[in-house]
């Protein structure tokens, strides 16, 4: 058993889903970046040609991962994480500023975004930490360390500032929740987000009235847990304070462009030519696809270049326009299948390290996927995160590939675990 080759044990379902998504991703990039004069698909002066190169380069990367020692990822997780943090700190000195965000290193022609690397490193370290047998997230100390592993990079990334990437890290709360972090962490996070948006739509004074009514109802009907009125009172005060502070945060802390993004989402006084332009164009492109789409390479919005950054964060608009509702649904279902497959594999791991890591992979991919598509169809504020395997860019494609294939390697190696 020990010497069984890696080829027989890797999960082909995940790999096929990965390949399908990468191919579809390249096809949409090709459509979105096709110039008027056709050139070779390998023409690296064109976006699609470069993406072809990036895809080609994933093959050695995958092979290196699959043929390396599975243990190395667990053993070196501290090192990876350390390097990651140093890279993030280094951005303050050597980083390149692009669109107001200092989150790139530039080496000659190639850019490198350390936050992509740190995602994997954080997942590895979190998995490593939680896999220690004495760690129990019921203990506050362990909770703090677990959360610190996640939030140290979050803080550094927020200083770039890159809210999108920070949000991806925060989603690891799913993993901590799965591994036993008390549920109130998760639910208070959800409630905080809900309160934030509601207080922008509803006057805070009405909002705290509604919250009060809900809490009274909860107090009356919830007989299972201890009903300490003082706890309820304190909780209420915190929520009310939060609701009122939102408008302050909104007015004083958020940058104008962040306010615009929120305004666009809640439909508040938006100029469709300016701050609303991206979202409006993206919805037009998707909406014009209809049931079956305009056909591959036939998207008028795509060709007209109406959607900004269409080959990167807005790549899904091309899917929507050219492949229609049916194509969009197929792509979404392929993603969902991949996520569920990863979770299924994770749950069947023999080591806690592999399980936690697998969970991190599923969470990362899902969060990217959801935030990216939701922002295109006005379900989420505009946050620049790429769509895994679809969006143009070597850095992001390789990061997702490494992230996924480390898990596939760990999974393939599970028969060696005792």
């Amino acid at each position, binding site marked *: 058993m020990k010497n069984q080759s890696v080829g027989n044990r890797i999960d082909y379902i995940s790999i096929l889903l990965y390949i399908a998504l990468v191919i579809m991703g390249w096809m949409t990039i090709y459509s979105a970046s096709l110039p008027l004069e056709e050139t070779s698909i390998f023409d690296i002066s064109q976006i699609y040609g470069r993406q072809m190169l990036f895809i080609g380069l994933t093959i050695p990367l995958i092979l290196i991962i699959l043929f390396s020692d599975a243990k190395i990822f667990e053993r070196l997780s501290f090192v990876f994480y350390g390097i990651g943090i140093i890279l993030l700190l280094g951005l303050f000195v050597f980083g390149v500023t692009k669109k107001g965000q200092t989150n790139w290193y530039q080496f000659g022609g190639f850019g490198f975004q350390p936050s992509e690397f740190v995602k994997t490193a954080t997942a590895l370290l979190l998995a490593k930490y939680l896999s220690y047998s004495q760690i129990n997230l019921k203990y506050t100390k362990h909770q703090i360390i677990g959360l610190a592993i996640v939030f140290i990079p979050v803080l550094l990334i927020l200083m770039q500032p890159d809210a999108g990437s920070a949000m991806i890290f925060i989603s690891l709360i*799913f993993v901590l*929740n799965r591994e036993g972090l008390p549920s109130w962490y998760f639910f208070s996070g959800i409630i905080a987000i809900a309160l934030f948006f509601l207080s922008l739509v509803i006057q805070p004074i009405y909002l705290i009235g509604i919250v009060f009514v809900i809490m009274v109802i909860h107090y009356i009907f919830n007989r299972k847990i201890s009903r300490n009125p003082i706890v309820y009172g304190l909780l209420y005060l915190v929520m009310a304070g939060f609701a009122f502070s939102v408008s302050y945060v909104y007015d004083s802390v958020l940058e104008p462009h962040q306010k615009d993004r929120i305004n666009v989402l809640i439909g508040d006084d938006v100029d469709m030519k300016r701050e609303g332009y991206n979202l409006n164009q993206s919805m037009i*492109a*998707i*909406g*014009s696809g209809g049931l079956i789409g305009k056909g591959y390479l036939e998207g*008028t919005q795509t060709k*007209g270049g109406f959607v900004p950054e269409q080959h990167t964060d807005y790549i899904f608009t091309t899917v929507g326009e050219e492949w229609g509702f049916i194509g969009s649904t197929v792509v979404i279902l392929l993603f969902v299948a991949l996520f569920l497959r990863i*979770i299924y594999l994770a749950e069947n791991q023999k080591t806690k390290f592999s399980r936690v890591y697998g969970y991190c992979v*599923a969470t990362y991919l899902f969060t990217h996927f959801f935030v990216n598509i939701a922002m295109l169809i006005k379900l989420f504020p505009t946050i620049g995160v790429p769509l895994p395997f679809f969006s143009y860019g070597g850095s992001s494609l390789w990061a997702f590939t490494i992230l996924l294939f480390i898990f596939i390697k760990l999974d393939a190696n599970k028969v060696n675990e005792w």
Partner: protein
Amino acid sequence: MRKALLPAVIIITSVILIARIFYLQVIDENLKLQSENNAIKKVFDFPERGYIYDRNGKLLVANQPSYDIMVVPREIKDIDTTEFCSLLHITKADFIKKVEKARVYSPMLPSVFLSQLNKAEYAAFQEKERKFEGFYTQKRSLRDYQVKEGANIFGFITQVNEAILKKNKYYNSGDLIGKQGVEQQYEEILRGVKGVKYLLRDKHNKIIGPYKEGKFDTIAQQGKDLTLTIDHALQQYGTELMINKRGGIVAIEPKTGEILALVSAPTYDPALLVGRQRSKNYTTLYNDSIAKPLYDRGLQAAYPPGSPFKIITGLIGLQEEVIDEQTTFYCNHGANFGRFMKCHCGLHTLQLNNGTYKSCNSYFGHTYKRTIEKYKDSYYSVDNWANHVKSFGLGQFLGTDMPIGAKGLVPDSKLYKRAYNGAKIRSSYIISNSIGQGEVLTSPIQLANMMAAVANEGYYFTPHIVKKIKGQNLDKKFTTKHYTTIDKQYFQPIIQGMEDVYNFGTASGLRVEGIKICGKTGTAENKIRVAGKTYQLKDHSIFVAFAPRENPKIALAVFIENGYWGSRWAGPIATLMIEKYLNGKISRKDLEDRMLNGSIEDEYRKIENIIFQRKVDPTRVQDSLNKINVEISEAKKEEEEN
């Protein structure tokens, strides 16, 4: 529970995403529309409008190039308005108004900013067109009239209005469309079909190539040429004869129903409705509620027909066998039909022939009386009579290929039942119908058509104005004979009477050597009511005729408003028209001079005074020149006083 959370969140959020995408892609139509406006630009290729020829192949209406300045309000970018306005001779206020109007129509679609520039204006603008982003010029073809006559036949070209834009998807704002006349009636044939090119453009409105390799592009189809039935020489002659008169001339070729001339007076030069002055000129013509130059009197005016209607009365009498050629009636400056109907014929014993050429009211009154009293049921008799009349195309729309017409009126039992509350009608009530003065109303074209039916001895073709459409057959309804209810044998006696109108009768002074003309004079009373008072106006002068008697080539009706009596204006004009058409030249020069130079304008002035309730003041200034003189003298007076 903890294990299920992430999968549950994944599945629920994905369902939400799919549902939302379903809404955007399948339910919300709005986004698709926006996408079309966004990325596809339609560029139209307007085909040249078909030419119009007369029956002898003379070119009447051609085209000339013209240029419109188009504007896309959204694309206007800081232009030098002062330069722009001075280049086009418009004011800044005009500029703002026009742009605003275009913006209201659509900020994204092109609207006409300024239409029909001439070549010089176009050249000046084109030189600087690049500087005025959001504006561009578009070539159009405008009508170029080769003749001055026939404005009422041609109609004109104008920009489509909002109502048509809403109804007809073919047109876009700023497109041209035919209005009135053959331009309206044969719009689709003349205009052709415009070609469309779909171009893809990017967000900077830059054209990036054809949409789907031009799969949906269409090629413009040329407009087809029309050949009219009009004889331009005759039309021109008729127009000249009608100068300083009001009324209409309609001439028809009996054998085919082709309209040879359709004159309405007063008329206007069709070139007035071309170019930038079009709208101003049109408003002036439109607002002239007295002379009504836009009103086609040949087609639209329904007058009492007067004596020409006696032809019908006589034919019905013969057909109903209430009279024959020998039937004799007596006239004593009129006859008593329960009330006295006067007559000027001057004879005492009348038969069909002299009754006709002397136009005796008593003779036709008696004939009509017998027709109406033939059946016990007077309403049946009236309907029987009305059916005969209607079989000549009277009392109904003729169905010509002109977009306008008049129904006229032929009273039937329905009308009289209402008027007399169902009581039995006596012929005496309605005796005036016998001489065309009762309830009967006809338009000049109906009278001309009636003449054609008489000339053909019992049938007519629906009058029509288009003879040939290139590569297309004429509508079948114009080649189908419509038979009257009068048998062929009854026509000759009446026709003889009509010929004798020229020999011994009311038109004996109008004879033309070598042409046997059959005619009938007419005089129709008319009154107007102004401010509760009825005024008796000068009678209308009417004449109907066809010629030559054997193998008739032309049938016509002439109607001169307030021309007093038939042989004074209408008769001579009809005779000259016939001679012109048949011989190509005029032997009766005296008659011609009198008609060309004669004027009834004084009479019309009097009517205007009545309508406007003016005190007739001989010193009252009439024209603009006088008005200016008066102003000058008043100014002088003021100076002296100071």
